[in-house]
């Protein structure tokens, strides 16, 4: 089955950030990129991003603040903004996380895990359906890296995610670094999760680096992609290669050479052509 919103084989990409816009513009080809949706004004998208669009790059608006896993339905103005950004960038789909970022008037400032309960699944499914009804394109759902679990968890991660994407018929945005981080922090085998997830629903994949501190692996996006995560890309692609894989960097931006080397490593692990 073709995943709704993204076709076949697009290739390797990297998340667009203003700090690395020049490096991305200098790449000979960039099949795929993503922009933080909340940072885009629909009437005036960044010109550098529009140039990439003209060159044929697929641009996906990636939300970080919908709070799809929150107890409240997503506020209408947030959905409207996301829809406008999708239209401004002619995006085939948008994405956000299975997480919450605010509750009871408090902004947490980060993606926070939700309890893996049947009741929470019902709430998230309702939230996602409402959002989807007001968007022009599908919304891919991304599981997060969690430093801790909830005491009331009833479902495994795979059961929880599968139930949500199947009931909402949503594509999955799989963060392979999160799969690695969660497995390390829970003392589990990351390939077991790959075996249990509906990989045919994966629209695209996030790849990122992290660091170990306080005895846990933090998904920082500010460190190079570790070899173990590249190995996991090989494991994933051996099972089913996703339409696109994309490097996420959010700070401590490396020199252009190092960034290109990281993109080459992702291309080699996935079997997609180099973009450098």
């Amino acid at each position, binding site marked *: 089955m073709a995943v709704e919103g993204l076709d076949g084989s697009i290739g390797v990409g990297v998340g667009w950030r203003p700090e690395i816009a020049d490096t991305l513009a200098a790449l000979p080809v960039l099949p795929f990129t993503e922009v933080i949706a909340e940072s885009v004004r629909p009437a005036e998208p960044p010109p550098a991003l529009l140039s990439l669009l003209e060159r044929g790059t697929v641009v996906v608006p990636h939300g970080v603040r919908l709070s799809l896993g929150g*107890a409240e339905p997503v506020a209408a103005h947030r959905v409207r903004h996301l829809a406008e950004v999708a239209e401004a960038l002619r995006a085939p789909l948008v994405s956000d996380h299975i997480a919450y970022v*605010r509750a*009871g008037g*408090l*902004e947490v400032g*980060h993606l*926070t895990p939700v*309890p893996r309960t049947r009741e929470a699944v019902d709430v998230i499914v309702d939230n996602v359906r409402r959002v989807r009804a007001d968007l022009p394109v599908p919304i891919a759902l991304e599981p997060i890296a969690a*430093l801790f679990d909830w005491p009331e968890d009833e479902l495994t991660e795979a059961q929880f995610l599968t139930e949500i994407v199947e009931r909402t018929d949503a594509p999955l945005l799989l963060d392979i670094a999160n799969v690695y981080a969660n497995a390390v922090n829970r003392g589990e085998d990351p390939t077991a999760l790959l075996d249990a997830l509906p990989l045919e629903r994966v629209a695209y994949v996030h790849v990122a680096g992290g660091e170990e501190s306080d005895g846990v692996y933090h998904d920082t996006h500010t460190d190079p992609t570790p070899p173990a995560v590249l190995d996991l890309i090989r494991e994933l692609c051996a099972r089913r290669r996703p339409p696109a894989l994309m490097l996420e960097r959010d700070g401590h931006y490396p020199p252009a050479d190092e960034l290109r080397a990281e993109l080459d490593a992702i291309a080699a692990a996935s079997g997609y052509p180099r973009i450098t």
Partner: protein
Amino acid sequence: MSAPSPTPELGDARQRLAARQTALAAALVAGAEIPDGFDERRVAIARSALLNKRAGEVAHAWPRLAASLGPRWRPVFREWAAGRPPRGSLRDGFDLARALAVTRRLPREAAAELAEREGFWFYDGLRPPRRRRWTPAPVRVPLGRLRVYLMSRAMPASAASDEVPGTK
């Protein structure tokens, strides 16, 4: 996609989830106790990681404030921010810089940055900063407003700003 049809059961589920999520959020960013049943060590690690991430975001928005404190930036920020819910980098930086100014701990370079921002934004310490229509010259910080700020520490969480950049 079919129109959602809320049920009474879903309403109850939302209420229970809201209570649990709020209790955890309060433990993560507002200094509340960690709810029963969580791995306290892990939640404490997450709380600490949130403070570091927030310190980085505020340093980005207030580069001279962070740079002028040098290696003390992170400890100073963490001490100030612990238990204080995020209100967005612009506002967090305003609040911290003003607090340091009151106790005469604001380095000269950071004071210049604060003065520029005071000229550009109208910020009463209670509501999100708004752009001034004109820039007053010379710029100065009215002391009354600083007192308002100090008292505002006890403000209800519901007034927390929605504009927190970057959750990732």
